[in-house]
């Protein structure tokens, strides 16, 4: 089971990685995926989450082949 994980902006710099493929038993939850993708780093406050380019809450379910993105508050415009 594979999930693509992406980190953007300041979060990418803090973690030192922008994208990785995680082999994990699915379905799983965001917290478990975060722990696997970051080697157990604490989950930062105010981080936004998207699954397959749609915003989701932290209690959302992650399935096989999903693309899960973590990023700080947006600042465009």
């Amino acid at each position: 089971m594979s999930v693509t994980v992406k980190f953007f902006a300041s979060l990418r710099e803090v973690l030192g990685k922008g994208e990785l493929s995680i082999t994990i038993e699915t379905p799983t939850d965001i917290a478990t995926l975060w722990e696997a993708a970051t080697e157990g780093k604490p989950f930062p406050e105010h981080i936004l989450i998207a699954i397959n380019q749609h915003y989701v809450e932290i209690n959302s379910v992650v399935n096989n082949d999903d693309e899960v993105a973590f990023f700080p508050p947006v600042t465009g415009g």
Partner: protein
Amino acid sequence: MPVKIVTEAFNPWEILQSHEQNLQEKAGKCGALSNFIGRMRDYNEGDDVTQMYLEHYPAMTTAHLNTICEEAMQKWDILDCLIVHRVGEINPTDTIVLVAAWAGHRGSAFSACRYLIEELKHRAPFWKRETLLNGDVRWVEKNTSGDL
């Protein structure tokens, strides 16, 4: 209802003029055009800023901007709308964003235009990293309020 992400400097007035030339049969029905242009300032939070880098999440950005346009078209009686947003390296005075709404009357045009820019700022996955005059580099942590 075009949405464009651009990596080069753009002239918002040329884009508006070009789009208006392509309104065709809608042109005679457009009594109002409301637009917002956002530019890069040379200061932020009391510091001189010399350059900015705008990062985005390409697949999600385009989808969200299209959704925001569709929502505006559904909420108000507007005939067309437009969003152009810059990414990459940006210099002070460069245009960052152009949003525009065409409608029969000003009420719908004003409301839709404000909706486009406010929703973009709250939802579209862009992030600004600024370089200060003293060489420091920092991420912008939050947008300023658009409240009146």
